[in-house]
């Protein structure tokens, strides 16, 4: 199973995402932002980092890179896409996910181990979790506060598109404790926390993040 990991200038957690894919049993494939080439991958991960140094707005420039045009088109055709942290910001800027990520309410970068509640275990990236399950993964960002208009947030909630919520403290002031959301078809998922940093006991606070990557392998087989 080929899972692409895009490297933009300034991507940082691309090596981590590739490792997580490998540990889950998939084949990570490096994708380069500047090429119109998805290399026949079965799914794509947009990793964390500071693409283009967060200049203009976090994710804004990367969302307009050549490869993202292909990602947007393929996602509309059902290609599963996961955006982590900066990847989530890119997906919002690219219009694949609703809402926006803004400066943390306390104005600091914050890195801590964070409990999340899985609100939807039926997306392409969360099938190995149970509805309501709590998982522990790192969060680390300075612009992770998820915001949207009240009407839009009501609509998202109504459509069941909130995939993760922060539990036991909201690390960045996100509206309604929202940590991650999904597309209408449940194939595109974005979240601020970092499941790829919770895939080994040796280096993570848990191995709870591995489920993202085992889930997608099963989802691709089933599709």
């Amino acid at each position, binding site marked *: 199973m080929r899972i692409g990991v895009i490297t933009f200038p300034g991507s940082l957690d691309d090596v981590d995402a590739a490792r997580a894919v490998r540990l889950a049993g998939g084949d990570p494939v490096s994708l380069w932002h500047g090429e119109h080439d998805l290399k026949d991958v079965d799914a794509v991960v947009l990793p964390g980092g500071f693409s283009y140094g967060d200049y203009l707005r976090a994710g804004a420039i990367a969302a307009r890179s050549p490869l993202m045009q292909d990602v947007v088109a393929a996602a509309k055709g059902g290609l599963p896409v996961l955006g982590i942290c900066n990847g989530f910001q890119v997906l919002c800027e690219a219009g694949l996910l609703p809402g926006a990520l803004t400066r943390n309410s306390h104005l600091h970068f914050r890195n801590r181990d964070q409990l999340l509640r899985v609100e939807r275990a039926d997306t392409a990236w969360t099938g190995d979790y149970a509805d309501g399950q709590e998982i522990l993964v790192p969060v680390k960002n300075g612009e*992770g506060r998820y915001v949207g208009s009240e009407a839009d947030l009501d609509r998202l909630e109504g459509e069941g598109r909130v995939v993760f919520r922060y539990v036991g403290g909201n690390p960045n002031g996100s509206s309604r404790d929202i940590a991650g959301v999904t597309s209408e078809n449940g194939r595109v998922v974005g979240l601020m926390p970092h499941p790829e940093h919770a895939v080994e006991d040796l280096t993570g606070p848990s191995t709870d993040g591995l489920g993202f990557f085992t889930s997608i392998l099963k989802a691709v087989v089933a599709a």
Partner: protein
Amino acid sequence: MTSVDTVQNAAQHPDDEQPWAELGLKADEYARIREILGRRPTTAELAMYSVMWSEHCSYKSSKVHLRQFGDLPKSDALLVGIGENAGVVDVGEGYAVTFKVESHNHPSYVEPYQGAATGVGGIVRDILTMGARPIAVMDSLRFGRADAPDTARVLPGVVAGVGGYGNCLGLPNIGGELLFDECYTGNPLVNALCVGVMKHDDVHLAKAEGVGNKVILFGARTGGDGIGGVSVLASETFDAEGPAKRAPAVQVGDPFTEKLLIEACLELFAQDLVTGIQDLGGAGLSCATSELASAGTGGMHVDLETVPLRDSTLTPAEILMSESQERMCAIVEPGKVEQFLAVCRKWDVRAAVIGEVTDGDRLTVDWHGERIVDVPPRTVAHEGPVYERPMQRPADLDALRADDAGKLPRPGTPAEIQAHWLAVVSSPDGADKSWVTEQYDRYVRGNTVLAQPEDAGVIRIDEDSHRGIALSLDGNARFARLDPYTGAQLNLAEAYRNVAATGATPLAVTNCLNFGSPENPEVMWQFAEAVRGLADGCRALGLPVTGGNVSLYNQTGDVAINPTPVIGVLGVHEDVRARIPSGWRTAGETVLLLGETRPEFGGSAWAGVVHGHLGGQPPAVDLAAERALAELLAALGRDGLAGSAHDLADGGLAQALTESALRYGVGARLALHGDAFTALFSESAARVVVTTTEPDRVRNIARAAGVPVTELGTTGGGSLVVDGVLELPLAELRAAWSATLPALFGGPEHGTALTVPAGTVPTS
């Protein structure tokens, strides 16, 4: 373009007045430059010499002392020693590790965010220059009193700067220090460490070899930042309209450009496109070109007008001096230039051929065809002035040492002991540092095995063999104030012990020596004593010094900081899975104290926090005992016998028990032998608390190693209980320990004033 001072002009007008004094040169230094050149220097040459002969670049006051590090016995592990950008150490399996710590104290006081950020950027480029991929950073920070108004200005900016730059580069911050003392009020210390890893064959050196090879400048464009004193020259040489308004003397960092520079460099190394490389840091192009040429076999020529500029009004001298960040200089074979430029293009890194390696032994620089520099590069880079400054034992030292901390009033009742305990662990030095460390990414790259608040940072370097490294950075200036020789050894011993406590085998030492003015004989004495102590200590522990950094003139007015030798120790883990963490995770483990406790309170946290006292003798150093303890810890790690291990240092046993219990919220029931006060607050060295499920086996191994063992009790429960002394519920202890920094610097849930200029800095 107006009158540029050329070599020809300098020869024709030998008596022109030059602002050598304003540039910090002494009369005899200026005379020596004239003697070397056989004429007066041009304006550009004067700028180069003045900045390269500054204390910062030339180490002219410290050199005679630092030689002791080079005289240490040869170590098999040392692949590249002092003199290069950073030393390189063999850590096994073909891996080499390079690490170094550097100060950025003065810029961080002027402009906390950018000063600290560019401090991280500079040390990362030093590591990259050696051919290594940077894999982690650490920071050792010192500020004035925690409640001083200026600390509230400086600290949040420094922390945000260290985090902002390191996070954006994708380097985990794995540890460091945060300490407060009045002596740093007008002179905070910001020391940043970077560590990188490569294969033995990948080591690159900073020298220009091969006549005809091209000199390529790549990275950011050159601007007017960080020029400092050289602006004196602008008024002299240029332009009818007078000097342009210059950027501030503190450089401005762009971590995104540096990230691209890292990836580009590593690709250039991998494709074997580089024969020599040097980063541009202090003194910019002057330093890079003269050092490259000086270390090589030939000369070098540079056409300065080919340097890409972001400010077209810069004078040639300013271009040579600019400390614009995120720039590197490479020596490249002509046939590889196209490939080199292609890699740079891929990573959106600007690159320009600015000159070439020549035969002969001169460094020449032209500006639009006119020669403005013609010097022997060694005289700029490596043969600067050397001073044997006068030294004098501080006049107040005898009185200070006679002021014995052992005579201070001690807590008499259990209630007083508890009050003193809480005071120490909730003091700014002893308190939880999460407010700071949560602003640093410790997870990126996925190889962080241990990070702050552990005793040492541990990083995996091979995912298949599980080989890894451990690093600690320590510097107790209170001990060094009382006795710089012993204090430097205590700092070395602490860093060594911290690395050993994770189960690693210590391998090599780096250092950042922060002192006051070398022109003060008492400061010079402190410096010399600290260097001698460190060199003797390294000899006793069998460790090489791989390099280091000296920061002098750290003082407020006439008052020098306490001597602050910050020592970094690198260790190796054959298998990081065997690492020993510092926190208690499991109930029912036996708590053992390894090492001997003596009534030693001079310079202790207890004396400082409770009595505002600094005096007496620092704890005794026993490096043989440190070595035995380290070997014991390595054995315990190897055999999986220690559930946890935590070094005892500032705050003694009280501090260590607090940290181990609060790490995972597991308490303990303990009994102390003898005087409870001494047991809890003494800062005797060579001690570690371990927990184990096999106390008898640990005792046996310790006995064989000659390390005394005292049983303290058993882990478990929701309190720290010391029989007959106190019972502290962990919730109460945690509340005291964790409230201090948020209360001082803005609670995590309360927004604090923004110190970062909006829009200039990436934040997510």
